[in-house]
């Protein structure tokens, strides 16, 4: 397969993603961690006696907001939009009657969405890190943590978007499925003991982060079924990365497979 169709889809959908009004709302949501960081930092500087550790605050923001909320939300909306928007708005006909294979179409749009989301999420994480750690930028361990956080957020975006792209290709109520999955399944099952937690993507993402002990980042979840808060039993990093890559490939591959086989009828 030549790269040209893929790239042209990529360019085209990147423009449409940037143009959409809804995108602006999601950009606003992604800026929230930065605002949060500014507020907290001002507060910290104003009352130095309270001993708030910038790194602790940062890890709270990453775990509580970016990973368990922002990434899920953005991937869910942009992932399902890849096909559902074209079908709902009946615009699928235009790309479908161009010399672009359906695989290239899905992968191009997927890549456009993912790269846009990565820019959003990673930029806002890095900026909040810089703000919160402004006074201790030489602290090496902090940079290591930042690196691992970015990896977790990045893999999360890539993997979840692939999953929801797949969901969008064949589920009519893909959003409902996605919300159940994100805030019902992922948010709860990741705290289950033993093997069960390995059935969530979040488990592998958290395995990328260092020393996640019981409850860190947990209490600011939904608080749902609190008695279930058991400790995480991390998977080795290499295994986690391999699992995430495989999952992403499987989801994206299935999405392409479903999309090139399915006929999309607009309700006429």
């Amino acid at each position, binding site marked *: 397969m030549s790269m040209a169709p893929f790239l042209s889809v990529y360019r085209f959908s990147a423009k449409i993603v940037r143009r959409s009004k809804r995108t602006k709302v999601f950009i606003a949501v992604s800026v929230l961690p930065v605002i949060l960081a500014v507020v907290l930092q001002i507060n910290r500087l104003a009352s130095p006696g309270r001993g708030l550790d910038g790194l602790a605050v940062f890890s*709270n923001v990453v775990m509580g907001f970016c990973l368990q909320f922002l990434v899920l939300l953005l991937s869910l909306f942009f992932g399902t939009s890849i096909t559902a928007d074209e079908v*709902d708005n009946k615009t699928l006909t235009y790309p479908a009657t161009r010399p672009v294979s359906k695989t290239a179409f899905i992968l191009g749009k997927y890549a456009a969405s993912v790269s846009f989301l990565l820019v959003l999420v990673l930029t806002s994480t890095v900026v909040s890190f810089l703000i919160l750690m402004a006074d201790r930028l030489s602290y090496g361990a902090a940079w290591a943590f930042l690196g691992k956080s970015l990896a977790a957020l990045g893999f999360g975006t890539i993997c979840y978007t692939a999953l929801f792209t797949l969901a969008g290709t064949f589920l009519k109520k893909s*959003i409902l499925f996605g919300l159940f999955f994100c805030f019902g399944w992922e948010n709860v099952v990741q705290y289950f003991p033993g093997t*069960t937690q390995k059935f969530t993507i979040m488990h592998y993402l958290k395995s990328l982060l260092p020393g996640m002990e019981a409850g860190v980042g947990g209490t600011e979840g939904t608080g*749902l079924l609190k*008695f279930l808060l058991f400790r995480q039993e991390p998977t080795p990093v290499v295994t986690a990365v391999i699992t995430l890559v495989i999952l992403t490939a499987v989801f994206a591959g299935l999405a392409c497979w479903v999309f090139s086989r399915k006929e999309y009828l607009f309700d006429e």
Partner: protein
Amino acid sequence: MAIAERGYTHWPGSLEGGRRPWRVLEDFQEMLKGADKFLHINPAYFQAYYGSSFLIFMMLMIMVGSGSGLIADDLRHNSLPLYFSRPLRKRDYVGGKFGALAFFLLLLTLVPGILFILLKLLFAGSFAFLADYPWLPFSFIGWSVFISSFFSLYTLLLSSLGRNRRYAAILMVAAYFLSDVFFGIFYGIFHEPAFCLISVQMNLRQLSAAFLGAKPQFDVPWIYSFLVLSAVMVAAVLVLRRKIRVAEVIR
């Protein structure tokens, strides 16, 4: 002093046949151990039910599933002119949509409450329960109505923001969890209970505790939570009045 044998050791247990496939279920068994209190109905039971985040999550799913399209679908399919070419006011239209959603939400709130009371009366065989807690029916009815109204208006507000129900659904969940996540972060850092006022969920739980006579989780007067939630409802009404226009600017 005993010296442990080094190297290979025997295993003292006995084998019971392969059970590996059921490992997952075993995990669940562990979790459900709290369920034996199930039929122990008393005010605390009501407090637990109405204040549980599980109930709120289920309500949220109903809102996403059947509420997100209420107005967004009408906007998408241009049905508003059909409604308003009838002798119908905006408030009739909104009222109808509100009623439809509130009905489903009351199924989750009011109906179980009534069932609990009936079960209790049935098993106890006397009305002593009601005599002991005469305020209880009023409390849970009042609370059911309040929370259902709040969520209905909240849903209608977000559903009227666009023609896309998926977008409305995402917004509904996003706004809800966002407020909660923010609360979690701020509270986790500052340990200041007043932050519970920024979380929709915490406000609801504070208020449910106040309605059902339990001790609120945070030491913040319930009236503030009430004011915050009421403000959201008022804002919803104002936005709905602006958003539901019969005639749009034609191309």
